[in-house]
């Protein structure tokens, strides 16, 4: 919980804030971010194709229609040959205010970071949570 408060504290959640998240915590971070967000927040939550990061906590947020949460498969953004990747790149390159990564395992962290980094705008905030500080073999 202390780590979650640190993550939310360093995320810029102003008005019209656009945030791109990749997490493997089943929507825990997305939910916390949505509850903390102010009006007109736009959150793009990526998932790895196995678990869609939506849980029952988000049902409490249906009264507030100004928070838009979009769920996307991470594979779409990781594969540059797909049409959807081209469309997403065209509209969202350099547009997000925050880039959040929350991974319990260390695999693919660097690769995912490099894939999502171009979507962050200048002066955008990078917040990455990992249980590992260095590579362990």
């Amino acid at each position, binding site marked *: 919980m202390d*780590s979650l408060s*640190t993550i939310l504290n360093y995320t810029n959640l102003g008005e019209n804030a656009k945030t791109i998240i990749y997490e493997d915590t089943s929507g825990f971070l997305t939910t916390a971010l949505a509850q903390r967000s102010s009006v007109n927040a736009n959150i793009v939550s990526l998932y790895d194709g196995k678990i869609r990061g939506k849980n029952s906590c988000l049902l409490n947020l249906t009264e507030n229609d100004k928070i838009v949460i979009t769920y996307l498969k991470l594979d779409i953004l990781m594969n540059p040959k797909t049409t959807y990747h081209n469309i997403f790149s065209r509209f969202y390159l350099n547009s997000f205010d925050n880039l959040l990564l929350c991974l319990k395992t260390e695999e693919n*962290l*660097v690769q995912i970071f490099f894939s999502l980094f171009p979507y962050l705008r200048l*002066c955008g905030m*990078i917040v990455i949570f990992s249980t*590992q500080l260095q590579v362990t073999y």
Partner: protein
Amino acid sequence: MLIGIEKYLFDNKIAIDIKIHETITREYQILTLRTHPEMNNKGYSGYVLTAIKVDKAEK
């Protein structure tokens, strides 16, 4: 992993205010005249890297 990302951001000068945070919970023993922090605690809280993206510096 986080060390590698921090080094990449720092070396390429594409981010500023790069920090790695480690959160800990320090428990205290509370006894009369024997109050002190616990000498051991859990060490798997995780790390949080924060940075601000900037334009790549021109050489």
